[in-house]
């Protein structure tokens, strides 16, 4: 049965791909996730333990629940994959519409306590483990080994900027204007990056996945084409933004519960418009702004009793018993800075009240402090200092409004240009410090 479309296309659809065997119409700017949501196909997998339906949620490549199988390759992020004619997209971890494993959610109404469930007798435990291992995990192995051996590219940029969002682009422009165009690495594919202000030296569709301070290396990779990038920069600016954490509400995992910010950005990137009814759940000025850009009613989390729906979200039940019917629920939490790379680089990390963030000075400079984790502090003290300076801009540096983001970019650019004017330390001092 065709489902009611939730997002109107910007023009006539010209691309057709297959979802679970059936054709789906899409537009050139679409990702797999935007085309599926537009078509009302909200569920893409079942969850690891309770076997509940899940679908695209953060719409930003972060959450891991839009993983689908594309042309025989597992665990592709639907929200970061541009649509292609005739691509074959399949759900994962599900055995069809009447999946018998969905009963797990009904049978274990009070939850699965893996510390005590069938631990004794041992024979029952072994059988139970066998079944659980069969059901758990994410995706199945690829149909075939990859056709191409992954490539390798080494970079030694003067400045590496990680992230080509608003703050990354503004910083890159400021440095380029002063004669120091940085290398900018962005995990979203080029097709998903609109705007005329794209940096001149841009690696798009390439995710920085690690900082290895001991090896004095940053590492990034793309999957299509498969390439590993090894980066040894003199200066690193983290413009990685923030994650949208979940808001703990009953049934906050239903397909159709998405990030408000992810939805706003997705509409902007694809040119699609909402034909769905949306309710925004969140508090404060930012949530209000997101609700108004979605022309949606907003309710604070404290007023929500539960989200309702079975195979997808159908509404928000409030504490007074009223139900707001809707097709999508957009969560607008306080964003949590994406601190992970900074932590790997050895930055001191603190809790901001909304999430974790590196400690920065007024210019956004991150001190090369001891590693955040007490168990690793000893090693950090004996390790040589990293051969780069490290900076944060935008949301990672604590900014929330566009004016604050601009402020962090301006101060970081000025300080970084001063640092660039200094001669680099002799290489031997790195190697033997």
């Amino acid at each position, binding site marked *: 049965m065709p489902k009611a479309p939730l997002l109107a296309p910007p023009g006539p659809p010209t691309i057709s791909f297959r979802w679970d065997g059936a054709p789906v119409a899409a537009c050139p700017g679409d990702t797999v996730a935007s085309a599926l949501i537009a078509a009302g196909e909200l569920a893409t997998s079942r969850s690891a333990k309770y076997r509940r339906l899940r679908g695209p949620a953060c719409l930003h490549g972060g959450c891991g629940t839009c993983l689908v199988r594309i042309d025989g390759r597992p665990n592709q992020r639907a929200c970061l994959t541009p649509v292609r004619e005739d691509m074959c997209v399949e759900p994962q971890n599900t055995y069809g519409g009447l999946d018998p494993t969905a009963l797990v959610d009904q049978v274990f109404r009070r939850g699965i306590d893996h510390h005590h469930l069938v631990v004794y007798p041992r024979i029952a435990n072994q059988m139970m483990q066998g079944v659980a291992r069969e059901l758990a995990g994410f995706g199945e192995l690829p149909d075939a080994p990859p056709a191409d051996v992954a490539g390798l590219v080494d970079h030694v940029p003067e400045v590496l900027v990680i992230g080509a969002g608003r703050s990354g682009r503004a910083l890159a422009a400021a440095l380029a204007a002063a004669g120091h165009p940085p290398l900018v690495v962005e995990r979203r594919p080029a097709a998903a990056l609109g705007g005329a202000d794209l940096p001149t030296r841009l690696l798009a569709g390439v995710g920085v996945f690690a900082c290895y301070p001991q090896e004095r290396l940053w590492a990034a990779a793309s999957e299509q084409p*498969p*390439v590993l990038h090894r980066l040894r920069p003199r200066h690193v600016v983290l413009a990685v933004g923030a994650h949208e954490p979940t808001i703990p509400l009953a049934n906050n995992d239903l397909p159709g519960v998405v990030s408000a910010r992810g939805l706003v950005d997705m509409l902007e990137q694809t040119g699609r418009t909402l034909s769905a009814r949306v309710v925004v759940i969140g508090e404060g000025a930012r949530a209000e702004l997101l609700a108004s850009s979605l022309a949606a009613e907003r309710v604070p989390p404290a007023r929500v009793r539960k989200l309702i729906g079975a195979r997808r979200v159908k509404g928000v039940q409030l504490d007074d018993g009223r139900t707001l019917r809707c097709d999508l629920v957009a969560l607008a939490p306080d964003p949590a800075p994406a601190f992970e790379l900074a932590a790997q680089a050895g930055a001191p990390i603190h809790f901001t009240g909304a999430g974790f963030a590196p400690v920065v000075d007024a210019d956004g400079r991150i001190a090369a402090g001891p590693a955040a984790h007490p168990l690793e502090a000893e090693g950090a003290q004996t390790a040589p200092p990293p051969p780069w300076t490290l900076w944060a801009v935008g949301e990672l540096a604590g900014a929330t409004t566009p004016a604050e983001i601009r402020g962090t970019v301006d101060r970081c650019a000025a300080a970084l240009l001063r640092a660039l004017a200094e001669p680099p330390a002799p290489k031997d001092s790195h190697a033997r410090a």
Partner: protein
Amino acid sequence: MTARTFVCRCEDVTLTEIERAIAAGLSDVEEIKRYTGLGTGPCQGKECLSALGRLLVARNLIAPAALRPFTARPPVEPVTFGALAAGATDLPEDPSP
């Protein structure tokens, strides 16, 4: 469908399971991760870590200044074994001065 409140959707860790961990005397992020599996799925904590931190602080189980995240290990982004294998060569000489 059973009404459940999720803190970690990757590993299906519900608020009830966090409550059980707290009732067992656990009060910091690392302990609760180890007890429940929270944060150990594909998103590696991007969705749940700060939600857990806020919950522990709101209940006065830990002071904000004492709160630490679990260790952020590579990979932050998904990466294939094929791409990792491509790096099994020596780094070229650093051409910078």
